[in-house]
């Protein structure tokens, strides 16, 4: 099969070619400029962060041998040859892991309750007053932007050492994050039921209860479960600042160079996070159908 390809006359082709080259050149120049700016920013950042490649090269072996060391028992054997010795503190660690899970559960639930109470005031379509919406939104933004562990640091001083500070820190951070997501769900809700209920002379509260709530509860529960997953990770480090959970054990093990303990605790944390991820994913799929499983 032959296909005739029409070839343009020379001058016409040259003009088109020139235009094409010019367009490509312009694009390339812009890309080059972007890359140059990016490289300059990187260089500046490298100076700012005291990046020292020689340290990295000298010590990179340390990084690898660190994993070698945390996988070796005191007796010089590999950890998996003597699991009983490796996980010697499993009773204590499992208890701390349980505490971590409880911290994130209680924190998530408190956060979800506050977010639930606040989100109707933050949503464009249900907020009774514009100034109220502004205030609540800024409040949520504040709670979301300040990292949870900073709250934990402050709460440890106010409430004393222990898991209570961790719970409250996680609760505040979750309030901010969930409040925003919840109010976005409300903003996407269908407003026709609200009009229907308002036309019967119902109050604001009844409108929310009977028109909005039935549309949004599934979305709320899905986001709260997702948040719980995130909070388990967050709670695992709350112990670093004395706010309870497995982090306390981990930071002691790392700082005091109890090598095999570090790997044992890390293993337990990773396994727990896996299990929570999988089970909340399963639960979300079960409760809200396949499309909620992201």
């Amino acid at each position: 099969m032959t296909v005739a390809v029409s070839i343009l006359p020379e001058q016409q082709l040259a003009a088109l070619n020139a235009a094409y080259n010019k367009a490509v050149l312009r694009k390339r120049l812009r890309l080059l400029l972007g890359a140059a700016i990016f490289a300059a920013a990187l260089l500046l950042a490298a100076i700012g962060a005291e990046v020292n490649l020689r340290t990295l090269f000298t010590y990179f072996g340390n990084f690898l041998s660190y994993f070698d060391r945390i996988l070796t028992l005191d007796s010089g054997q590999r950890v998996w040859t003597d699991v009983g010795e490796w996980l010697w503190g499993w009773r204590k660690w499992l208890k701390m892991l349980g505490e971590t899970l409880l911290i994130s559960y209680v924190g998530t639930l408190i956060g979800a309750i506050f977010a639930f109470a606040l989100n109707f005031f933050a949503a464009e379509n249900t907020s009774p007053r514009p100034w109220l919406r502004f205030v609540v939104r800024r409040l949520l933004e504040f709670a979301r932007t300040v990292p949870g562990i900073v709250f934990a640091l402050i709460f440890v001083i106010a409430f004393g050492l222990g898991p209570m500070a961790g719970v409250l820190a996680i609760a505040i951070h979750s309030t901010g994050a969930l409040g925003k997501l919840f109010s976005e769900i409300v903003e996407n809700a269908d407003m026709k039921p609200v009009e229907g209920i308002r036309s019967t002379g119902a109050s604001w509260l009844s409108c929310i209860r009977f028109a909005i709530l039935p549309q949004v509860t599934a979305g709320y529960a899905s986001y709260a479960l997702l948040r719980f997953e995130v909070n388990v990770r967050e709670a695992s480090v709350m112990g670093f600042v004395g706010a309870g959970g497995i982090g306390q054990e981990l930071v002691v093990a790392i700082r005091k160079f109890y090598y095999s303990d570090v790997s044992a605790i890390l293993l337990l944390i990773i396994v727990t996070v896996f299990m929570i991820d999988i089970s909340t994913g399963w639960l979300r799929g079960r409760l809200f159908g396949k499309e909620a499983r992201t």
Partner: protein
Amino acid sequence: MTGPQEVDTAQIRARYPDVFERPAAARLATPAMIVAALGIFVYGLIDLDFSPSRLFSGLSQLGWISMMMIPPDPGSSLPIYLKAMGETLSIALLGTTLAALLALPVSLFAARNVVPSIILRFPVRRFLDSIRGVDTLIWALVWINVVGLGPFAGVLAIAVSDFGAFGKLFSEAIEGADQKQVEGIRSSGGSALHEIRFGLLPQVLPVIAGQVLYFIESNTRSATIIGIVGAGGIGLQLAEQIRVLEWQKVSFLILMILVAVAAIDFISGKLRFAIIGRRAVA
């Protein structure tokens, strides 16, 4: 016009038994779940030492602390704080870039359409998952043991923990790419590398660039806290000032963090729009 019709309730009940006579299991499921959730909640409150007296004394303490925070005042350490903020932004930028550069080749091995063999793909995926399961702060502690205290440990911590996240996100982007371009390259005799370079990369680069920008944004938040364990940046200053109870400086530092995060959000939002938005239109 007829009045409201007489409704034969009994007949309707008989016709729709599922609506009127729901089985006990379906009726009790929601209350049972709520009771269980509340039960765990109450157990948690007791187990975690929540007592009203502690809560109230803590809240009054917190009230005092917030009063002492006003007005925010850096004292004479403003230059130090600005330098620390610069350090934080540098950590976020460098860590994210490093992670993206490392994750790009690895993500190819985790993508179904590039590496069809599950034997090779499965370990790569699990490896990325376990890296992601460990929090940035833990990586920071590990790197401090290796390269010593300072911002460099922070850069490496962010790079490693984002490496896991990027590997997963990039491989998903690659799997979502259109196979037709790749087939086109193959049909014209391109090698596997050509397929990736000319078939896949042009499709996934804008997506990846958007994700990297988003992570630079979120890493600015992470970078503010890794200083708490000694890995440099503004977190170090913040933790120190909280420990010595200099509340005015603390509130100033928190304000600085808020402003910086808002600024980065704004800039990267614009850039993201410029990169992805233009693509979506064209």
